[in-house]
């Protein structure tokens, strides 16, 4: 059996009809993980016997949800009882979680079979998944390139069929960026919808938990499990007719590779053919991005202050550099960022209330960069690769809005994503728009294995 031939939804249906058992499914997942791991490093920990025991335990319980028997991996920033809880840090290599995070507990209750622990950028503070302590995760479309991050292992594991879904965290784009760069679907719900209890913080004002899977419907099924809300997010067959799609105007959004903009325009035209209406939108996106940068840098340094005092050398060079710089940002910048955030949230609420149903952007301005690439050439200028990758995603962490990335094509053989953003609490609108796009687009290929 090949998990790439089955969506989570299809596998769940076969499990419920007893045409497939959790044990068979987990064996398929482990077989794929065994072949993928040496090349792509999707996991920081993989214990086949533990996964088999989980599957046996689940099959002894009655089927209670659409997630019953589904193999899934959690980013190793989300506590999973009796499993490693490294957060991608050498200092935490021997830490084992003594309890489940709230989202883990909910998935366990729903009958999920946990497979390994997904690789991540150290403490989720970066978007390349180049981890000096656990080695880099690699992009399944080109192993010389980054899978994106920080939930890089989650996206690789889903894209290669090691699991049917994963759960990551997103503080500036850490679910949506790797989803886009690996050709899978990633979703960050409204800020506060999902519990962060038992999730190691990066920037508490911006941290979100979110699912990754191969289809929008699958992401919605996992979201229901995470939220403990069966049936709330999976009625998605609204189509795109009459949908008002906001498309940002201004130079901020034009800073993207030509190929990315072409795929984006094709995606919008496809939605227009389905009956959606394009609405030009003006908004101070650059300020929203700056809010995210200010909050992230100050809060991450605050989270890690004690460790910086005691053992600064325990951090990898890139993370240490960011943490030290965050300690020197003026308090005035942080307080202003909080005020600007409130002002922009009010404007965004008005925008979504009166003008648009969803906003569309490319998820990232560039496809997957090479591993080690610090600077990317774009339109004749050299740009910081990390800042570039989060440019279109982190405004929506600042605004706390639900945002989805759906694969929308290829640039130079590498997948890129369409980002769709909704108003606060409008998860179903975003997911339905993504589902409509996905159906109009047709099946998206899996990476060569």
């Amino acid at each position, binding site marked *: 059996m090949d998990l790439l031939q089955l969506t989570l939804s299809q596998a769940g249906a076969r499990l419920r009809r007893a045409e497939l058992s959790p044990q068979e499914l987990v064996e398929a997942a482990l077989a794929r993980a065994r072949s993928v791991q040496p090349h792509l490093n999707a996991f920081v920990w993989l214990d086949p016997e533990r996964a088999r025991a989980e599957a046996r335990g689940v099959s002894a319980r009655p089927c209670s949800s659409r997630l019953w028997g589904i193999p899934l991996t959690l980013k190793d920033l989300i506590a999973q009882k009796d499993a490693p809880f490294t957060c991608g840090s050498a200092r935490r290599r021997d830490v084992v979680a003594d309890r489940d995070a709230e989202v883990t507990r909910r998935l366990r209750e729903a009958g999920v079979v946990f497979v390994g622990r997904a690789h991540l950028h150290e403490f989720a503070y970066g978007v390349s998944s180049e981890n000096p302590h656990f080695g880099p995760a690699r992009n399944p479309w080109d192993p010389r390139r980054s899978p994106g991050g920080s939930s890089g292992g989650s996206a690789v594991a889903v894209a290669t069929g090691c699991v049917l879904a994963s759960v990551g965290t997103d503080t500036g784009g850490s679910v949506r960026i790797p989803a886009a760069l690996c050709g899978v679907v990633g979703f960050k719900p409204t800020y506060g919808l999902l519990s962060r209890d038992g999730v190691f913080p990066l920037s508490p004002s911006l941290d979100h938990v979110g699912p990754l899977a191969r289809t929008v419907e699958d992401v919605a099924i996992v979201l229901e499990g995470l939220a403990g809300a069966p049936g709330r997010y999976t009625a998605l067959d609204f189509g795109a007719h009459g949908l008002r799609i906001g498309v940002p105007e201004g130079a901020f959004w034009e800073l993207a590779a030509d190929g990315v903009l072409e795929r984006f325009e094709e995606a919008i035209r496809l939605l227009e053919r389905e009956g959606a209406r394009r609405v030009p939108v003006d908004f101070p996106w*650059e300020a929203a991005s700056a*809010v995210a940068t200010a909050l992230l840098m100050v809060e991450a340094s605050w989270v890690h202050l004690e460790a910086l005092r005691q053992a*600064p050398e325990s951090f990898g060079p890139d993370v240490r550099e960011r943490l030290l710089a965050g300690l020197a940002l003026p308090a005035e*910048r942080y307080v*202003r960022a*909080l005020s600007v955030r409130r002002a922009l949230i009010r404007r965004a609420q008005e925008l979504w209330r009166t003008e648009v149903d969803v906003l569309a952007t490319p998820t990232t301005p560039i496809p997957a960069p090479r591993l080690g690439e610090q600077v990317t050439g774009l339109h004749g200028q050299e740009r910081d690769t990390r800042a570039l990758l989060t440019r279109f995603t982190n405004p929506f962490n600042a605004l706390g809005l639900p945002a989805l990335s759906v694969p929308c094509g290829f640039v130079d053989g590498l997948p890129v994503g369409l980002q769709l953003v909704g108003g606060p609490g409008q998860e179903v609108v975003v997911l339905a728009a993504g589902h409509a796009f996905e159906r109009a687009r047709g099946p998206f290929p899996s990476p060569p294995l």
Partner: protein
Amino acid sequence: MTDEDLRRCLRTHLQALGVPAPADAELPVALLRAVLERLNALDAVELDGHEPLALPWTQEGPWTSSS
């Protein structure tokens, strides 16, 4: 600000917070400069005076409708 200003700023903050400072060459001067420049975008948004930080009991909550 010059590189030396930023270096001094970093050293002062690290010392005040009890964080051992690395050698001069390893102080993230270029990163701090880049971030500060990025944060200039905050000044493009006009604010109505100095709004206080919200407190839980000043925000709308489930209790509001029944009170």
